[in-house]
Structures are given as structure tokens and as C-alpha cells.
């Protein structure tokens, strides 16, 4: 690791040296040129620097691939860098368009930066698909999406009985759905009402206080919500239920769902606030002029206009809830129960991924591979939700432009 760091420093040093010398030469040479010059001396410097530094870097990559010795690598780098330097030095002159090449290089780097985001997506899809395929070789896809029994953790080595484990993911999907439902049915109305209050009722001063306060909720890391659910909210709910004569566990779909709902409130409120504010004031004026109250204007006119955007916001909130991890890991309980009772321990897709992929990994056992299959499901579902939401929101915002 350290030797690579040194070699990178060597590359940078070669670049800098070439830059300085080439610029100096260009300055001398271009000073006597009578006509307007295309490239300023520093561009000639950059050209030389990039030539020698680029070749040195190439040498570094090649020798890293061939695992050559550090000493040989340095020699190779310096030789190539010197060659590149002289190549560039020879070109210096009023007619050489160094700037064009340098700018071409800059633009190529920028393209590369944009492509990294694409590569990330491709990487996600391929890594999920690849391991999932291996999983579906051992467990049929149909069994996976329709099976009612999940006990991945008990699937062990070949010599154990019941080695195939049980990979019916329906209880996992049901648990995810239940928690998402609870979370969104808390976040959606509260978030929406906050957005409405902020855009229609709050004074400028009240807005200045309320908005950042709500946004603090969005800035709190999810692990903190998880801890709060586990140690404060869960016991509180259990205590409350006990005082009413019910016995419920601390960790349940309800505990995780409610706390997740609180976490998503600012997400819903800020997205809805944007779409509500995008409805032109003239709509409101038209309604007020007919003698409508603020709430009538809001629910019957503004809401009608903002509805697509609000649906988009809700879809994004659902996608967010499905992918949320730390709260469910700490507070959902984790038992793969197929239940509609919110006061039972349930498991979710993200919970299973965490349990299956932390600790010892065996990339040839269906236990580990099943996490990738679940990850693929998670990715596909959230991707679809995001796409639909983005299309709705985009179409909606185009309407009022």
C-alpha cells in the first residue's frame, strides 16, 4: 500500500517537473513569436506534464498488473516519463495547439467521472444478478417468491440434516410490507399536513423556525432512530400495552414501523411542500375570490393540482421505507413470521441481508447467496418505485412551467 503511495507521488513529481521546464521553454520561445498564439505557455507546460505523468502512470498500472518489483517500476516510469517529456518539448512552438489537447484531456476526465455513476449501477446489477443466479440454481425462483417458510439461518453444511434450509421469502416480503405500511401511514398524513401548514398558514417567521426543526429529523442517522426504537419507544409501547392488560414484545413491526414513520416525516413534508408551492398562486387567488376558505382552497383546488406530485412523494417515501435497514435490524424483532399482527416480531428484506451477510460468509452456500437474491428484489422494487415517482413528478412540474 505504502509503495503505491510513493509511486503515485513519483508520478506527480514527474508531472510537475515536466510542467515547469516545458512552460519555461514555451515562454522563451513564444515571446519572440510575432503573431497571436493559440496556446499560452502554461498549456504547453500542462501538455508536457500530462504526457510524462500520463506515461508514468501507465507504467505504474502495467507493472502493478504484472506485479513487477518497485525498483523496476520506478525505472520504467522515469524512462517513459522522460520520453514523454522530450516528445512534448520538441513540439513547443507558436503553431502547436497544446491547449486543444489539454482541454481534450480535461473533457475526457469529466466524461470518465460521469461514467463512474453508470458503472456503479452496472456493478450493482451485475453483482446482484450474478450471485442471485447461483442462488436460483439451488432454489427455484418460484419456491423463493411463493414459499411460506423462511429459515435461511438454519441451513448449514452438507453433512447436516435439513441442509437445504428453507427459502420461501413470502414472510420476509410480508414483514417488509407490514412495516412499510405502518411507516407510510404515519409519515404520509403527518408529513403532508406539515407541508400544507407551512405553505398556507405559517407566517414567514414561523416558517423560519419550523422548517429547520423538522429538517433536524431528516439529519439524524437511522442508527439513532433504531436505538431510540429499541431502548425507548419499544419499552414504552410495551409498558403502555401492559397497563392496558396486553402483553406485547418490545421489538415488533409496530415499534419499527412507527419510528420509521417519524424518520420519513421530513422526507414527505419537504417533497410535498415543493409540489404544493409549485401550484401557482393564481389558483389560490381564484378560489379565495369565490369566497373559499383556506382549507377549502387547499383540499379542493391546490390538492387537485398537486396530487400527481404528492403521489410521487409518497412513492419515494415507500421506496425509502422498504430500503431502510438499521431501524428494522434493531427494532423489528427479526422472526420470519407470516403475520398481519403489527405487535409481532417480523423480519424484512434488509434485516435478512444484514443477518446473512455479516459474520462468516460462504459464497457457495445458499444461505449467503440468498441475501443477494433478496438484494436483487429490493433493488428492483425500489428502482421501479423511484422511476414511476420521477416520471410522475417530472410530468407534473412540466405542467406548471
Amino acid at each position: 500500500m505504502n509503495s503505491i503511495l510513493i509511486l503515485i507521488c513519483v508520478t506527480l513529481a514527474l508531472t510537475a517537473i515536466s510542467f515547469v521546464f516545458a512552460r519555461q521553454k514555451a515562454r522563451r520561445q513564444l515571446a519572440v513569436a510575432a503573431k497571436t498564439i493559440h496556446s499560452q505557455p502554461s498549456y504547453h507546460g500542462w501538455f508536457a506534464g500530462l504526457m510524462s505523468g500520463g506515461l508514468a502512470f501507465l507504467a505504474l498500472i502495467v507493472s502493478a498488473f504484472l506485479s513487477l518489483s518497485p525498483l523496476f517500476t520506478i525505472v520504467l516510469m522515469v524512462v517513459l516519463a522522460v520520453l514523454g517529456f522530450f516528445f512534448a518539448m520538441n513540439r513547443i512552438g507558436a503553431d502547436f495547439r497544446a491547449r486543444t489537447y489539454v482541454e481534450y484531456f480535461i473533457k475526457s476526465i469529466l466524461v470518465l467521472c460521469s461514467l463512474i455513476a453508470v458503472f456503479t449501477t452496472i456493478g450493482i446489477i451485475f453483482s446482484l444478478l450474478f450471485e442471485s443466479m447461483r442462488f436460483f440454481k439451488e432454489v427455484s425462483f418460484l419456491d423463493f417468491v411463493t414459499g411460506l417458510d423462511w429459515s435461511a439461518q438454519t441451513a448449514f453444511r452438507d453433512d447436516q440434516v435439513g441442509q437445504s434450509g428453507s427459502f420461501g421469502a413470502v414472510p420476509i416480503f410480508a414483514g417488509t410490507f407490514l412495516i412499510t405500511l405502518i411507516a407510510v401511514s404515519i409519515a404520509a398524513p403527518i408529513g403532508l399536513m406539515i407541508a400544507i401548514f407551512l405553505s398556507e398558514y405559517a407566517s414567514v417567521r414561523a416558517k423560519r423556525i419550523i422548517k429547520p426543526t423538522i429538517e433536524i429529523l431528516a439529519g439524524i442517522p437511522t442508527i439513532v432512530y433504531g436505538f431510540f426504537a429499541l431502548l425507548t419507544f419499544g419499552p414504552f409501547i410495551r409498558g403502555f400495552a401492559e397497563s392496558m392488560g396486553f402483553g406485547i414484545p418490545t421489538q415488533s413491526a409496530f415499534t419499527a414501523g412507527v419510528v420509521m414513520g417519524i424518520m420519513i416525516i421530513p422526507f414527505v413534508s419537504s417533497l410535498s411542500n415543493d409540489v404544493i408551492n409549485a401550484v401557482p398562486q393564481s389558483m389560490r387567488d381564484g378560489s379565495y375570490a369565490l369566497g373559499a376558505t383556506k382549507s377549502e382552497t387547499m383540499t379542493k383546488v391546490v390538492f387537485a393540482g398537486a396530487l400527481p406530485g404528492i403521489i410521487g412523494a409518497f412513492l419515494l417515501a415507500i421506496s425509502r421505507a422498504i430500503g431502510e435497514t438499521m431501524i428494522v435490524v434493531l427494532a423489528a424483532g427479526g422472526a420470519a413470521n407470516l403475520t398481519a399482527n403489527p405487535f409481532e416480531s417480523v423480519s424484512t428484506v434488509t434485516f435478512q441481508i444484514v443477518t446473512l451477510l455479516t459474520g462468516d460468509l460462504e459464497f457457495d452456500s445458499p444461505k449467503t447467496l440468498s441475501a443477494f437474491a433478496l438484494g436483487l428484489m429490493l433493488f428492483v422494487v425500489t428502482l421501479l418505485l423511484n422511476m414511476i415517482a420521477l416520471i410522475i413528478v417530472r410530468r407534473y412540474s412540466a405542467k406548471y412551467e
Partner: protein
Amino acid sequence: MSQSKIKFSCRDVRVAYSGKEALHGIDIEIEDQGVTAFIGPSGCGKSSFLRVFNRMNDTIPGCKVTGIVKMDGEDIYAPTLDPVLLRARVGMVFQKPNPFPKSIYDNVAYGPRIHGLAANKAELDEIVESSLTKAGLWDEVKDRLKDGGTGLSGGQQQRLVIARTIAVSPEVILMDEPASALDPIATAKLEELIDELSKKFCIVIVTHSMAQAARISDRTAFFHMGNLIEYDQTSNIFTNPTDSRTQDYITGRIG
């Protein structure tokens, strides 16, 4: 004209936005019959003044109205007065047509619904039809009442807004440069409609077009830099103005 009653009477009305005064003490009486036009160069305060009559200025943060405005002898800025009720009685049509993102039918039915003017669907249908008819739009839209109001042309949209306003059965209709976003043909149609409506409603119209004021109004008030300069029968204002500034404006020297 002389036996017409006074609808609005204003004493020393001032409008200020965030402490900056836009209207400096207006005294005016607006008659019940016919069309009253407010003219003047842009920024003279005529639109701000129009919004005084249905308290639309209340919806603008930082806007403050002082002075006395009476409608049928009743102070409309009294704390006991309900702006919602006032606006049902004083309708308004805006500069840019602003139909709601709903069907044509629902646009017109919106006001009657919130005010509970129809006891059943049949009554509501009747109100919608008669309002659209009065606004001269019925024949053009009767086959597509379920279509969106925003799909109509600009002139149709503005007439839809007028239909929406008269569906609430107001006493007064305020119009804030209603033709400024329309082409000449739609404008002509709209002016015809205003003439027709003036038989049943008290109409106050703000316009930047002197020709329009001359064509459609019975009385004209000229505003300049936040002051009411002159208020008289339209014919007098345009043929024999008493103030030199009115003279300058109608001859095109200011504005």
C-alpha cells in the same frame, strides 16, 4: 343613472405593502349600476385598489389597508365582517385566466358547492348551465363539460372564470385587466359580455386600455402615482378632463 344607489363608498383608503404606501388616501363612491373603470399608468395603484373591495389584499403577506370602505353602508373592514362571505358577494376576475385544474363543470360548480347553493345535482346542473350561458360559453362547451378547464383557449378560459364567478351569484364583479392576456377577437367578445353582465351586476374594471374604458364603462376614475386624480362620467373624462395629468395620460404623454 342619477337614481342609482351607492354600492361602495371609500374614505381615505390607504394601502401599504410592508410599510411602503402604494395608495395615498383615496375617497371615492362607486355606483351600483353600470360599469366603473379604473385607468392609469402601470404602478399607479389601480389594481391594489380593486383588491380592496373583496379584501384580496388580506392574502398578501405584509399588506395593510387603512381607511373606511363601506359596501351598502356596511364597513367591510370591520373585525366582525367575514371576508369569506364578502368574497361570495364580490366576485373577481383576474388578469390571467386561472381556471382550476378540474373539469369545466367542476370549475363552475366549485363556488356553488362550497357555498351550498344547490340542494341537489339537478339544481347544480341548472346553475352550471345558466352561468355558462350567461358567460356566453355554454354553446361552445356543453358537449365537453367533463374536459379539463385548462384545455380551453385563453378567451374561453377567461369566460369560464366569469361563469365560475357568476355561479356564486355575487352582487359585484371586480375585473383586473381581464383582457390583457387575450387577442383582439377574444377581447371584443369579452367586452360584449361585460356590457351584457353590467345589466345585472355592479362591475368595477381595471384596464390599461383607454379605448376599452371608453367603450365599456359608464364612469371612469383616473389614478396616478397612488392618488385618485379625477373621477367622472366616462364621456366627461375623455372629452373634457379637468386635471392636466388626465389630459396628458389620455393623449398619451404619460403612461
